[in-house]
């Protein structure tokens, strides 16, 4: 009987042990695997590398010496190439290096002929016909002091393409050796580069998403807030506001005007973003502000303080494209009603503004167009009026340049910048915009990717699907390519890769599936699992305890027997 009970006990112990084994070896891993969230693999190490951004921007400059600027001895040592690096550390994660590769040479006969034109603008035109500089590079022509191309008080002329004319001092003042000449020229060429290519302030402003710098003066804050941020597309809406259709019947050839004046600019900006244009006419749309009558000028005036309150009542009426989430630029043309004509805008000093227009940062522009000159007091209402689209588009084009970031701050003293071409943008302005947009895209994409990785790390219960992992990987690849292209100076490719990177990273970050699952505090987790597992575990634990106590008792008996 003892034998049988031992057998029984042995079987009981085996049963308890095997159940415990099944629970621990199979059950617990199975429960762990089935309750974990699916997280696809992300290239975390590469993302960490990208978090530390080391950007190098390379610019190619060609400095061409015209006749009369170099002595024959100096001319023997030219042509030569110099490379210069400028390092700036922005903060602990971001460092910038600017590389300027300068090639010095003397002018060819054809270039000398071109430089003999009477004015700087014609010289610029004929120089352009000779050769076309690639995107991102510059050519600076050094002309002697005696040259008559530039007016007296101007030292540098910035052309419409990628050329600049730099007037150098007399040879006696500059120096006899080539080194002296070059050391005199170098800071002046760098100044030209900062205007035409990139300057440290522009690039650090483009990095604002990554680095929140303390704002400088009011102008720099205003500059940074004015232009729209880089976006894959923009919507431009032209609206004609007619508050008084009974008096004025307005005709505007918006299609033709857009085709002639605006499309050339947008075509040139095509590598940067897609643009879609629409137009509308609003009737009985009043300004929200009452203009004051100024008897000295016998006109109605709007002073600058009340301009801020004009936009809101109108904006409620403006339609917008419901399908896209691109930023919208609104350009409004307001024709005052017959009782409040003419309407002028005054600036802070109570002076009339010649353009009669104002703009709001990151929103758009409004222009007031007075039509009281078009008809006399005895005209039969409603009067047909054709709006002069060239004048209107001149203002809107200037505002568009400001809002898209094309226009820069005022050039340094003694600089003369050529007026805008018919396309509305000079080649070097496009280059400058491409530099800052590429840097901005790269900075934003790296911030997005690193913050996404950080968020997914921090919030443990977000499911990461395969498509998100794929987007992240493609964003990382595009970023690495963009940084490499920027280093080698291929501006167009750098911009393209940076655009791809930002699209992929935004798509990954804003994927609808990345919503974190409900947050469970620890006490709720215990409350769910205890009723399930405790009834099952109690018999197992008790039998295991019993086994242990039996084994101990048997050992004690053995010891007792042995004694």
């Amino acid at each position, binding site marked *: 009987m003892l034998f049988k009970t031992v057998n029984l006990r042995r*079987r009981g112990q085996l049963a308890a042990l095997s159940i415990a084994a099944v629970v621990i070896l199979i059950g617990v891993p199975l429960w762990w695997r089935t309750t974990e969230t699916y997280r696809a693999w992300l290239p975390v190490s590469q993302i960490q590398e990208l978090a530390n951004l080391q950007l190098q921007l390379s610019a190619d400059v060609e400095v061409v010496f015209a006749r009369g600027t170099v002595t024959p001895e100096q001319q023997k040592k030219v042509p030569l190439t110099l490379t210069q690096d400028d390092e700036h550390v922005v903060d602990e994660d971001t460092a910038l290096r600017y590389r300027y590769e300068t090639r010095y040479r003397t002018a060819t006969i054809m270039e000398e002929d071109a430089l003999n034109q009477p004015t700087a603008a014609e010289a610029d035109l004929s120089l352009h016909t000779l050769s076309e500089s690639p995107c991102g590079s510059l050519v600076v022509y050094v002309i002697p002091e005696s040259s008559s191309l530039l007016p007296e008080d101007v030292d540098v002329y910035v052309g419409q393409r990628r050329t600049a004319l730099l007037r150098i001092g007399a040879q006696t003042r500059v120096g006899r050796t080539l080194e002296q000449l070059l050391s005199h020229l170098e800071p002046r060429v760098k100044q030209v580069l900062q205007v035409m290519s990139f300057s440290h302030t522009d690039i650090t402003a483009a990095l604002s998403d990554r680095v929140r710098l303390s704002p400088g003066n009011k102008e720099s804050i205003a500059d940074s807030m004015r232009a729209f941020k880089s976006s894959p597309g923009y919507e431009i809406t032209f609206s004609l506001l007619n508050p008084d259709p009974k008096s004025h019947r307005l005709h505007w050839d918006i299609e033709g005007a857009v085709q*002639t004046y605006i499309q050339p600019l947008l075509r040139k900006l095509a590598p940067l973003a897609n643009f879609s244009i629409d137009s509308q006419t609003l009737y009985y749309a009043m300004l929200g502000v009452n203009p004051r009558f100024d008897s000295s000028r016998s006109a109605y005036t709007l002073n600058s303080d009340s301009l*801020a309150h004009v936009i809101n009542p109108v904006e409620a009426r403006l339609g917008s494209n419901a399908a*896209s989430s691109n930023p919208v630029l609104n350009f409004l043309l307001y024709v005052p009603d017959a009782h409040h004509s003419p309407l002028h805008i005054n600036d802070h000093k109570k002076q009339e503004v010649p353009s009669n227009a104002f703009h*709001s*940062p990151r929103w758009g522009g409004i222009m007031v167009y007075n039509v009281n000159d078009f008809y006399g007091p005895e005209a039969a209402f409603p009067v047909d009026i054709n709006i002069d689209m060239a004048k209107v588009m001149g203002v809107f084009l200037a505002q568009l*340049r400001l809002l898209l970031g094309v226009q820069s701050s005022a050039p340094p003293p003694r600089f003369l910048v050529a*007026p805008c071409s*018919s396309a509305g943008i000079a080649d070097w302005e496009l280059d400058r915009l491409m530099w800052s947009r590429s840097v901005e895209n790269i900075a934003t994409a790296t911030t997005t990717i690193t913050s996404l990785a950080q968020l997914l790390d921090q919030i443990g219960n977000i499911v990461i699907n395969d498509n998100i992992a794929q987007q992240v990987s493609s964003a990382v690849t595009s970023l690495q390519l963009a940084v490499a292209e920027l280093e080698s100076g291929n501006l167009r490719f750098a911009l393209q890769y940076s655009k791809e990177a930002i699209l992929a990273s935004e798509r990954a970050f804003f994927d609808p599936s990345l919503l974190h699952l409900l947050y469970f505090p620890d006490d709720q987790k215990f409350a769910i699992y205890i009723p*399930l597992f405790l009834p099952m575990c109690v018999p197992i634990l008790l039998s295991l305890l019993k086994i242990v106590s039996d084994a101990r008792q048997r050992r004690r008996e053995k010891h007792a027997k042995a004694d």
Partner: protein
Amino acid sequence: MKILTLWSLFSTYLLASSLNIENHAAQFFSSGHTNNWAVLVCTSRFWFNYRHVANTLSVYRSVKRLGIPDSHIVLMLADDMACNHRNPKPATVFSHKNMELNVYGDDVEVDYRGYEVTVENFLRVLTGRLPPSTPRSKRLLSDDRSNILIYLTGHGGNGFLKFQDSEEISNVELADAFEQMWQKRRYNELLFIIDTCQGASMYERFYSPNLMALASSQVGEDSLSHQPDLAIGVHLMDRYTFYLLEFLEDIHPASKTNMNDLFKVCPKSQCVSTPGHRTDLFLRDPGSVLITDFFGSVRKVEITMETINLTDPIEQVEQSPVNGELQKERNSYVDQLPVSEIIHQKPKQRDWHPPDGFILGLWTLILLVFFKTLAFQETAVGSKPPYRVQ
């Protein structure tokens, strides 16, 4: 001598006026935002929660009056009080006793209505993770220069806010959502106002910068409603929002009132609960923050100084192709429901999961019982005497 004093007075006046203009310009750009957004959420349904809908609609009305357009407001109302069967005055929602003020009006644009107001949709709106088919009016398209006002009202408790009487949002989730907004630079500054019971618990867990929070009551206190209307039969407004609205009625788009005045709204004598606020995460001093920085939409403007001289004549746009026939594009409406998918729907492939929880416990219990009875049988066998009576 007189001329000297006159001259000095004149020059000081000029200096003061120019400084004034400078200061004006400085203040214009000191807030750092270019546009304003508002997210107004009412989270409770049923007729007796009329006051929460009235709260939200009153704030909506004030915010619109001060200039924020509908395209920049995301209004979420969990139930429809104006067209409720129990409303004795249909198509109206009143916010004051004696039916003085109808806040429903005829230009209310509700973006999320009824059962669309869920925790998931609210978090999706905040973080921007909406499906691509969502229209523009249902999105929060803010950027890094947007000031956002978020107003929540409903029934809440210590650390949570109840949505639709069926789910909750906890303060940790809200803080995480704001952190995700900050990481993607979706706001410049954010003002969070909550009018629920124990509202202060909802902003305890915030940790992102540039957040300012106001709540109608502290932890452990209840927010009370203001007054019932005997004709409609329910309470019309909550106390905190009522006094907040009285305060906002004095604000106009050009006023210079700052946030310190907002903190003083509804003291304990009027509100019975103690309103609280939190400004430690906010970078600017609250005394320099204007009310209109969040509740209104004052645009910054600059005069356009330069124009471009355009001399080319306008080219005529071609009206029709040369060969004379008009190319007509056939357009057709897209199906509202994916009809072909619904008709040809195959049964969904569900992944096999191993049995979880309850089933696992049940099987373990059965196994235990089986082994126990086996052991019992053995003992029963063993208790029989080993010798048999022959």
